[in-house]
């Protein structure tokens, strides 16, 4: 199990690759699920298990479409190149008029998570305000925990996000943010609290070189989304049911355990109100 968990956060986070899951019947067109390594490392073992579990639960083959950024995956979903995408709350809200919630993972008893502000283990900073003029790592410009939270915090503190840091970089992966901070490439980083916690158990040597100096409020966990106009499609419904029933199947349970999820649930849009508030702070600046 530990080995499998370690596989979750394996290398190669930056490549953009398509990995297909060969289903039982080649005649049936594959169901396509869009993914991004921002949140989920494209570990072959995990994806294989996830694909097998979803195929077993839904009864049709599931094919993964991976892109490097949320923007790209969101684009795939909006244009119909994928049937469903595992997005972040921020891009979901950005396209709330077009997208519908399909399912939200339940982590540690609730469908929510936090954003962490991390620095190097030896760093003297204790708050975001201590990091002025330094180099900061975001994960993705469309990530709630890896961008929006920190930028909106700066706005709330009266800072100009574009000039507060001397330089900011995007790593397109929460694990990469942790690596960037741990290695000293950057002084601080905005990271998904769920990812950092999972890493602290599967790769403690990495997280030990960082420390959390600020945590955000609890907001809705990155959800599975589909286009509103297709939400009634049978296969999308079947896929949603499959997500809900994953915990009841041995293969599904195994994948949920790997991801440290309790289950998946149907989330309400209100889960993401916190994110929406921060979006409005950002929009106000624009």
């Amino acid at each position, binding site marked *: 199990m530990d080995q499998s968990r370690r596989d979750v956060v394996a290398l190669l986070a930056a490549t953009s690759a398509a990995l297909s899951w060969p289903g039982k019947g080649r005649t049936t067109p594959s169901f396509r699920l869009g993914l991004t390594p921002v949140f989920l490392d494209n570990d072959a073992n995990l994806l294989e298990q996830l694909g097998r579990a979803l195929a077993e639960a839904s009864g049709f083959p599931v094919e993964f479409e991976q892109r490097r950024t949320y923007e790209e995956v969101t684009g795939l979903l909006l244009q119909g190149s994928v049937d469903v995408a595992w997005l972040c709350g921020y891009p979901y809200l950005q396209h709330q008029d077009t997208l519908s919630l399909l399912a939200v993972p339940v982590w540690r008893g609730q469908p929510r998570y936090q954003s962490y502000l991390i620095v190097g283990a030896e760093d003297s900073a204790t708050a975001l305000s201590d990091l002025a003029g330094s*180099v900061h790592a975001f994960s993705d410009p469309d990530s709630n925990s890896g961008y929006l939270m920190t930028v909106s915090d700066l706005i709330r503190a009266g800072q100009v996000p574009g000039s507060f840091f001397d*330089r900011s*970089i995007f790593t397109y992966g929460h694990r990469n943010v942790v690596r*960037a901070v741990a*290695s*000293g*490439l950057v002084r601080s980083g905005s990271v998904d609290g769920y990812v950092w916690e999972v890493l602290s158990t599967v790769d403690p040597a990495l997280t030990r070189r960082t420390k959390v100096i600020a945590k955000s409020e609890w907001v809705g966990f990155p959800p599975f989304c589909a286009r509103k106009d297709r939400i009634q499609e049978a296969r999308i419904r079947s896929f949603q049911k499959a997500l809900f029933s994953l915990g009841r199947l041995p293969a599904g349970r195994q994948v949920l355990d790997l991801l440290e999820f309790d289950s998946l649930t149907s989330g309400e849009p209100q889960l993401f109100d916190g994110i929406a508030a921060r979006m409005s702070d950002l929009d106000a600046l624009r």
Partner: protein
Amino acid sequence: MSRFIRIPLTARVALVVAGLMVLLGIAASQQILTILGRVQTERVRELATAHVEALSVALGPLVLRNDVWEVYDTLERAASVSEKGRIAFTAVSDASGQVLAATDPRRAPVGSPFEALAMTAQTLDALSLSGSQSILQLKAPLVFQGRLVGQITSELNVGDLLAERARVSFLLVFWNAIATAGLALVGLFATRRIMAPITLLAERMGRSAEAPEPIPAEELPPSQTEFGRLAATYNAMAAAVREKAEAERRLAARERFVSLGRLSSSLAHEINNPLGGLLNATDTIRNYADNPQVVRRSAELLERGLKHLRDVVRATLEQNRIDRSGVSASLADFEDLHLLVGPEVRRRAQNLVWDIQIAPQDVAPFPASQLRQILLNLLLNASAAAGENGDVGLCVASATEGLRVVVSDSGPGLSADARQRLLSSQPVPPGGGVGLRLVHDLVQDLNGQIHLSEGEVANQIEILFPSTARDEG
């Protein structure tokens, strides 16, 4: 140098072999290390070139869009797969010379000046592994699609290559030392073996100071070799030297008889002359037997003549007695000499100056035989040299350190050959007699010294016999 010459030849050859081996070892080792250094430099250069080229391809677009994370991630993955941790550090800058990312961001923070990192870096073309530093720093331009988009600096860990070179150096020195020592020993034994005949020859030559000793047949090297021929030549030479020495010895022994032979005619006259008178005396006695006065006078004449004959015969016998080597000289020996030389001198109508200023004890320490032979030879020589009506002289006197003898004549002086015979021990030139050489040898036996002086009036041969001659001789 002189100390080196004192070392035996066999050891010298071994030392020379060892020295040459050391020189050869140094030259060969230097060559090997140079080649090794060149090969290693070439290897590092190829590696560095491949590293830079690969990074240029991978990083070009990333550097172009200033993607710090992707540059870092690529560098880190490249370093993690580099051969044996060969790439110790890499940093990449953008076109403005600011660090974009490095494998060790704490050492080269994002945005820091690149030039400070690459101050001592070598370019790919000039990359050399000649120093002793285990980290080699290089820099190269980062070119993408023909555009200079940034720069790369890398530190290559070449500690293993330097260690390999040090190990090769040590092994070369170690095995060269062993090979040199081994070959020197082999050289020593081989030389000793090769030189054994020469050593044998030197031993044989040095064993006897008088004449070289021939090498026994069982010790002779095979005759077909150079040493065999050398040994055979040596043996022939040794035999010739021995034969010559033997001949000289026999010649010297015969010289006494030779000199006596030279006297024989004059001695015959010496005996013949009084014989007429003596026979006349016997006739007179027979004819005037009744005249006692005449008989007495004739008998006296007869007695004097017979006494003279007796003296001549005694002196001749004395000169040729064989068992008189231990007899000390006496004044009578000088009288004998006078008697023996007298006929030669008279025959040539020469003036003989006979000056014997000594007491019997002055000549007692010297052996009569040698003294007589020396003086007889010199006097006969002087008489022969002085010619008709010449002057011949003998002066014997006591000196503080022994006996001083001077033989003089009015002749033309000694020839160069004669001088050599008398004064030196060098081989006697062919021709001529051995009388003077005999004098030389006898004087030497008595530890005497010979001096020559040639004046307008007379030539003198002076001999000083130390009084200890007998004890030592």
